[in-house]
């Protein structure tokens, strides 16, 4: 064995000889192990690995195929969103935080907007239609997020049909988002005071078409997976975490509900009028990956029920306002599509440029400076597809957040990876991590 092997360098440490294998030449590694090789191998899974849901690095200590110790390495997608938000106006903050957990952007926006509204003291002035639209978009988002969780989780264990049909249905959901908000993701649509725009014409028909489509196709997942012996063999009793473990580690969302405990902030601490909707909180009692799959599957049906109720309510609300009446807060968000496809409406431009000097001054001040938010702090938590998404905002009375912090459920839930994986097989790590459904954009922010 040569010491200058470019693919398998060795160095001596206090724990013995360490090989750093970068590829291809395994012969020199095997030869270097000697007559009584140590079985222990430390493997970096990721940060670039298709099965770790983004740039997540799993550090696994293996004894043969068994994982003896597991740790997470995170931070590869840290983009300083919280720091950046301290340098932008309160309204611009929505554009930043929507990019955190990119599979559930509406929840990021809603948590932030609700926190700003609490700081402003306008929580009970939000128009009813804005609340219904928020609930509509959040529940559609729950469906699209769970679809990705189930689709990618299926793909990782070889169930490729689950992946293809999962992304087919998700595409339908994203088409609705595009119709309503103009964007497939990173919408910045839910804003402090309400939502950015009213429903476009024809949206309700599309929503009803979507509900019909989903009612037809959602049962396919149950037929494909629920009793599938391979699916069950891979998921059952894998990634076990009971209620006591969840409470100690601050785990929320589907992992808690798979232990049989119906912890759901939509029921216990309702926001946006969730107390007025008829839906159930599905649970499962197996505390394993299979239970989490079943919880997500059932939750999509419940979300569809809520979407249906939202559509019925919206049908009776045509023309109602979607933004708080206070123009100081509403203006920075109130845009209309002009002939160029973006920006302020021509009527508004005509008003500020040709008719009212006062209106121009107000427009200028609100666009450049933004509104001020009274000093203090607020913490608002809501039930995202992954669990408790909290937003802690501190205001110093200025036009920008003094501090914005997000308690992302992916970040908290990922702490359970070692306890779920240690003692299991390498292949079970993939299933266990997939059952937590971490989104690295939210973990690292």
């Amino acid at each position, binding site marked *: 064995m040569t010491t200058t092997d470019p693919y398998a360098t060795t160095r001596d440490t206090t724990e013995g000889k360490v090989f750093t294998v970068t590829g291809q030449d395994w012969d020199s590694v095997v030869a270097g192990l000697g007559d009584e090789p140590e079985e222990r191998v430390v493997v970096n899974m990721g940060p670039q690995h298709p099965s770790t849901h983004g740039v997540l690095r799993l550090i696994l200590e293996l004894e043969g195929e068994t994982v003896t110790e597991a740790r997470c390495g995170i931070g590869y997608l840290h983009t300083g969103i919280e720091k950046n938000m301290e340098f932008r106006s309160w309204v611009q903050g929505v554009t930043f935080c929507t990019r955190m957990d990119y599979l559930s952007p509406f929840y990021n926006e809603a948590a932030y907007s609700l926190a700003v509204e609490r700081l402003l003291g306008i929580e009970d002035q939000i128009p009813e239609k804005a609340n219904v639209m928020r609930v509509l978009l959040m529940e559609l988002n729950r469906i699209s997020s769970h679809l990705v969780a189930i689709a990618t989780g299926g793909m990782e264990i070889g169930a490729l049909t689950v992946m293809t049909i999962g992304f087919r249905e998700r595409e339908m959901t994203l088409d609705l988002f595009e119709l309503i908000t103009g964007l497939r993701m990173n919408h910045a649509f839910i804003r402090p005071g309400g939502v950015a725009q009213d429903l476009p014409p024809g949206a309700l028909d599309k929503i009803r078409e979507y509900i019909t489509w989903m009612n037809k196709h959602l049962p396919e997942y149950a037929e494909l997976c629920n009793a599938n012996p391979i699916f069950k063999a891979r998921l059952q009793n894998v990634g076990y975490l009971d209620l006591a473990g969840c409470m*100690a580690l601050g*785990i929320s969302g589907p992992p808690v509900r798979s232990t049989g405990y119906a912890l759901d902030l939509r029921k216990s*601490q309702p926001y946006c009028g969730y107390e007025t909707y008829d839906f159930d909180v599905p649970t499962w009692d197996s505390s394993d990956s299979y239970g989490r799959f079943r919880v997500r599957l059932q939750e999509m049906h419940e979300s569809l029920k809520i979407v249906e109720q939202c559509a019925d309510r919206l049908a009776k609300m045509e023309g109602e306002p979607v933004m708080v009446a206070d123009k100081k807060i509403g203006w920075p968000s109130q845009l209309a599509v002009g002939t160029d496809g973006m920006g302020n409406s021509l009527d508004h431009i005509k008003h500020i440029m040709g008719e009212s000097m006062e209106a121009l001054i107000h427009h200028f001040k609100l666009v450049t400076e933004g509104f001020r938010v009274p*000093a203090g*702090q607020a913490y608002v938590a809501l039930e995202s597809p992954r669990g408790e998404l*909290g937003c802690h905002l501190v205001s110093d009375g200025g036009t920008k957040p003094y501090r914005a912090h997000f*308690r992302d459920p992916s970040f908290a839930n990922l702490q359970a990876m070692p306890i779920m994986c240690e003692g299991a097989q390498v292949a079970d790590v993939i299933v266990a991590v997939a059952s937590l459904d971490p989104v690295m954009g939210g973990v690292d922010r």
Partner: protein
Amino acid sequence: MSDTQPENLPATSAAGDAQTPAAEVVDQREGMFGVRGTGDTSGFGGLRRQVALPGSTPKPYGSWFDGATDRLEGLVGDGAIEKVVVDRNELTLHIKREDLVEVCRHLRDDEALRFEFCSGVSGVHYPNETDRELHAVYHLLSITHNRRIRLEVSCPDADPHIPSVVSVYPANDWHERETWDFFGIIFDGHPALTRIQMPDDWPGHPQRKDYPLGGIDVEYKGAVIPPPDTRRSYN
């Protein structure tokens, strides 16, 4: 602007019981648009603004806040709770840092309190609050009683130590690492306080107010747009 009630605060607390929390001044701002050390052409150079956060709330606090606070005071004794702030219907207890672990243990274990779920900790940096520059803010949830509470602990920048509550709430493991990473608060007793988001060899703690945002000028057709932290800003 009167001395007792800065204009940036609501006239009454959002708790709705017409209590006016005595404001606590944390900073003084001067001028406007971030103009420093040059001739003031903005005309706003004489502007003074006090930054004040809602201060201590007198009893009674209203709703379940009184019962829970009295119960906790009885368990941990006088002095552990420095200050109680009720603002916007949220209860904040300012805790002395040496009593934090005991307070958390009682909050978790006492049947009448039972805050079994910790939503983590984050930091806030107030560079002009002398000897209380760094704050750690904990959010606890009682699923049993369906309540939320906020604990706030401060430490001076020169001695940035706060006891770790991982022994009580293991959920705080990563949250404390993140707060150390971003603010430089050392959580004594944490099992492995290492950086979590930034690279291991990163210098400085990025979320502190004295750490610049960074960025470069962007030029477009001859016009230059400075990075966000050097743009004109409203104090």
